[in-house]
């Protein structure tokens, strides 16, 4: 697939269809890929595609587009990324004509943290993926290798993903990953994690929420990684008045995450980029997926699929459910 990406990139850059391409380059560590912007055909060798391409590149689009108003911008997009791009078009942060989407069929992104915690502190020295098999050598056992079925260590955002093929693209790269999971949606309910949580007691959910929140160091990597956190000034940075506490006291942290989740409600496509960006491994999708499920359930709204459909909070139906309204009697 990398060859096809590079060929496409060379062609687009050479014939001037795009001025630059936002893609991924090899990371400096095993199981890492790093976002990059290339501007000429000679740089296309840098482009890679693998199961570590977990950043949502759409995040860069509004600022890159603003900085390069006269150029068309090429971008690699997985299913989730393409849904984010669609959302950004819908919110008029970018123009459809200003971008060229190279669609990537995706068989899921690895959950590096899951692997790391499984390795219990040992360092990954080398990693290799072949079909459904991930082979690692680690600092603990440099000589031997550890194997995982890829499907067992796929990120939770991907294991329930319904849109592995981009919903919007100008060219679609053919899948040759050999991964059986590619392109087909899983049988499981898209909201199975939320449903599992909902079946727990309120106390258990609160406990889980607090234990996740206590990990947060307020670095705002989640915000940085999110394509929809493009506000010029984030609500948490408004200081006249200072509505939001910036401390690491738990309620301040929890409220930041609740409000952030609410701000991306109806926009978040559950790409999981926030969760993967989080250095402390906070389960950020705990909140966003719940909202996603409720919007689907109550209003039949799924983000990032239809550029014309009004956002769920921008519209209403007179017969919207209102079972939550208290009747005094």
């Amino acid at each position, binding site marked *: 697939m990398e060859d096809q990406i590079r060929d496409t990139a060379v062609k687009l850059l050479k014939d001037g269809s795009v001025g630059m391409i936002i893609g991924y380059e090899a990371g400096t560590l095993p199981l890492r890929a790093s976002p990059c912007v290339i501007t000429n055909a000679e740089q296309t060798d840098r482009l890679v595609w693998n199961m570590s391409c977990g950043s949502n590149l759409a995040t860069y689009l509004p600022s890159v587009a603003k900085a390069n108003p006269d150029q068309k911008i090429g971008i690699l997009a997985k299913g989730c990324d393409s849904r984010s791009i669609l959302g950004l078009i819908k919110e008029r942060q970018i123009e459809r004509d200003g971008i060229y989407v190279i669609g990537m069929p995706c068989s899921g992104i690895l959950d590096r943290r899951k692997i790391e915690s499984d390795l219990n502190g040992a360092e990954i020295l080398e990693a290799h993926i072949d079909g459904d098999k991930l082979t690692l050598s680690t600092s603990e056992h440099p000589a031997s290798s550890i194997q995982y079925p890829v499907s067992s260590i796929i990120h939770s955002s991907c294991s329930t993903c319904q849109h592995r093929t981009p919903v919007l693209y100008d060219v679609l790269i053919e899948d040759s990953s050999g991964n059986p999971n590619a392109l087909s949606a899983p049988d499981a309910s898209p909201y199975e994690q939320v449903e599992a949580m909902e079946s727990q007691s309120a106390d258990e959910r609160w406990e889980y929420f607090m234990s996740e929140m206590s990990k947060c160091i307020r670095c705002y990597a989640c915000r940085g990684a999110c394509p929809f956190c493009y506000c010029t000034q984030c609500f948490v940075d408004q*200081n*006249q*008045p*200072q509505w939001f506490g910036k401390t690491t006291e738990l309620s301040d942290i929890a409220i930041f995450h609740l409000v952030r989740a609410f701000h991306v409600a109806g926009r978040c496509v559950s790409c999981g980029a926030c969760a993967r960006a989080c250095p402390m491994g906070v389960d950020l999708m705990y909140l966003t997926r719940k909202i996603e499920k409720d919007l689907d359930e109550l209003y039949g709204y799924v983000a990032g699929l239809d550029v014309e459909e009004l956002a769920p909070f921008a519209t209403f139906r007179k017969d919207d459910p209102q079972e939550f309204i208290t009747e005094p009697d």
Partner: protein
Amino acid sequence: METTPSGTAIDTAVNPYLPIPTTITNITMETAARDIKTFKLGFRNESDAEKFDYTCGQFAEISIFGAGECPIGIASSPMDKGSLQFTVKKAGHVTKAFHSCEEGMEVFVRGPYGNGFPMRDLEGSNIVVIGGGFAFTTLRSLTKFILHPENRDRFGKLTVIYGARSPGDLIYKYDLSDWEGRDDIDLYVTVDKGDETWTGREGFVPTVTQEVGPSSEDAYTIVCGPPIMIKFTIPVLTELGFQPDRIINSLEMRMKCGIGKCGRCNIGDKFVCKDGPVFTYEQLMNMPQEY
């Protein structure tokens, strides 16, 4: 043998972050828009007044408990013992809270901070003070200091050019009228645009500076004002023969600690709070343009 930490005994009894108590003894509304006030603060404890030994051009961190802290240039002259004056524009949340304070209320202060104007260099020279708008505060401190009977002889000719947008925006009108009547200061007050009552000069500070044409001989000029004013005044001064090391500026930056620790006000390796806020134009030319 190494000891941890390196260095000798540290007097941690003194906490530079602890502000000292003062009481607001007087509040003067300076502008017609009612957005700039001068607060006079009296020290609660006499020993604090002794310790708060400052020079012109320094600033202090003012605490309004409940709102926070912010750096404000000291507008009083070091000759005014026992009290401090700060001229504050209502802008952020601390200054808004400050503006809502009344006489008799408590305000906390720590400082003085920053290098201040190079008084030793200024002594014996002619002084050209150029100020624009609200940035006149520390220049007022300097002017008052020079005009003090004990000091006046130690400085040469004093020229003050001060401009504001409109007559209502001029601050320290009481000082200006006092200075008007003196013969040991050449005062030029200008406004961008006058109103029906204005009989004085009209015109932007750079233009007026050109018209006044202060001599650069044996002179230092101290220029404070909005960036746009500085930008157009510097060429005028250069033309008048002021060398970059004799053009003195005072910078503003977002600050928190005021003592070179918190890391946000640096321009290159210089901290505006500690190594500044006063820099010569020569220094600024050799610093990154990041302010």
